[in-house]
């Protein structure tokens, strides 16, 4: 079987990028999910995430994750004359988010199915 270049160097593919985030995976998923709607700057991200996930990401944690996502090429800054610099999702970022959410949904589906069957049998 032909191996990809990424596999040869033991590097995760872009779609697996979020799996390497470890403890940053939570904030990274929330940020990518927020940017899936469109470009946003730091404070807009904080407010949006607070609204849809009921989680307030502290400024330091937000920028820790933003810097990491930018380094991995999953998001990119948008030119701005304002000090509030917006960010947008890249194609790789969209791919990584979709793969990560699909995997989370599989886990959620299994968990919910098993909970339902144990409720029926119990």
């Amino acid at each position, binding site marked *: 079987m032909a191996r990809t270049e990424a596999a040869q*160097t033991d590097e995760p593919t872009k779609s697996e990028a979020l799996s390497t985030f470890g403890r940053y995976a939570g904030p990274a998923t929330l940020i990518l999910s927020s940017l899936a709607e469109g470009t946003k*700057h730091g404070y807009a991200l904080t407010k949006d995430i607070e609204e849809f996930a009921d989680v307030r990401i*502290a400024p*330091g*944690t937000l*920028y820790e994750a*933003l*810097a990491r996502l930018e380094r991995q090429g999953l998001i990119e800054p948008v030119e701005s004359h304002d*000090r509030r610099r917006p960010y947008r999702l890249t194609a790789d970022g969209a791919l990584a988010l979709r793969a990560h959410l699909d995997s989370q949904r599989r886990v959620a589906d299994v968990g919910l199915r098993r909970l339902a069957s144990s409720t029926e049998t119990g």
Partner: protein
Amino acid sequence: MTDTSDAATRRARRLLRFYPRGWRARYGEEFAQLLIDDMSERPRSVTRTADVVRTGLLARVACTGLAGDTLEPVQQIRAGLAAVGCALIAFLAFGVAIWSQLTIGWQWSAPAAPATKTAMLVMTGVIFVFAVLALLAAIPLVCTLCRTFVQRRASGLVGPVMAVVVGAIVLVAGSIHFGHGWPGTGGHPWAGRDVVPIAVARFCWAATLWITSYWAHPGALASFPMSEITWMVASPIALLAVLIGAAKTLRRLPLSPRALRYESWLGTAAALAMAGFLAGAGSWIISGGPAPRGLFRVGAIDSAGVAVMAAALILAFRAAQRALTASLIRSSTR
């Protein structure tokens, strides 16, 4: 601008100082604005301050190459080597202080406890290993430095190299001068029992004169000659200049990938040698006796020194391992 937003801007600027310069250059403006926006909604928040302090300090640690994966492999190797160098200098300052004190004791009388004797021999052997490693490490560094200066590409290196040179000159000249006042045997008829040449022992003793418990006894310290007290203040400053200069030089010197890999291996070897030296010092602290005539008594400053050396060893091992891993990854992907 209102007083409230002025105050928020000032607070945001203060919080920003927790981050390293490079991070501030890239994210400083937008991050400060986020903090100001956040403060407009929540004027006071301990959680926010704690979060900024935590992530700022983590970003600083990541810059030293000791944690995180924010650095490119070449930067990671350079930062790791600089961290090994700093840890080694700190380790040697305290290690040599202990070793030179024991050497003074041995000048008068050989230690009675086998643990002390073994510790001294191990530490002396490891100091010889350090000298060899330093020589091996210096060769590519000095060659690259000379080439960089000849090619006039050393603009960012002049300051750090000057700090190393001036600091080293002060340390060497001062140690030779104050070494004449060492409490060894001098011309005593028992001289010759030494485990190392007297000139080396008294030089090391004078260079680390500032590592003493006299700082906790100002009354006793005041009875020292003023020149000696001045030296005890000046020598750690000179050592700090060498340490900072060496770290900056290592981070900026354009070493080839091969030289970086070579230096990474030497860094790992130095960390192993540090472990050997610490084992020697530790065995004296734990099992060594004070006899004869209390010459080898363990003081609080010695225990503190061993603690500092243990911390330096952990840092050196981590930095060396990260530098070596980065250099191996870099060579395997080329």
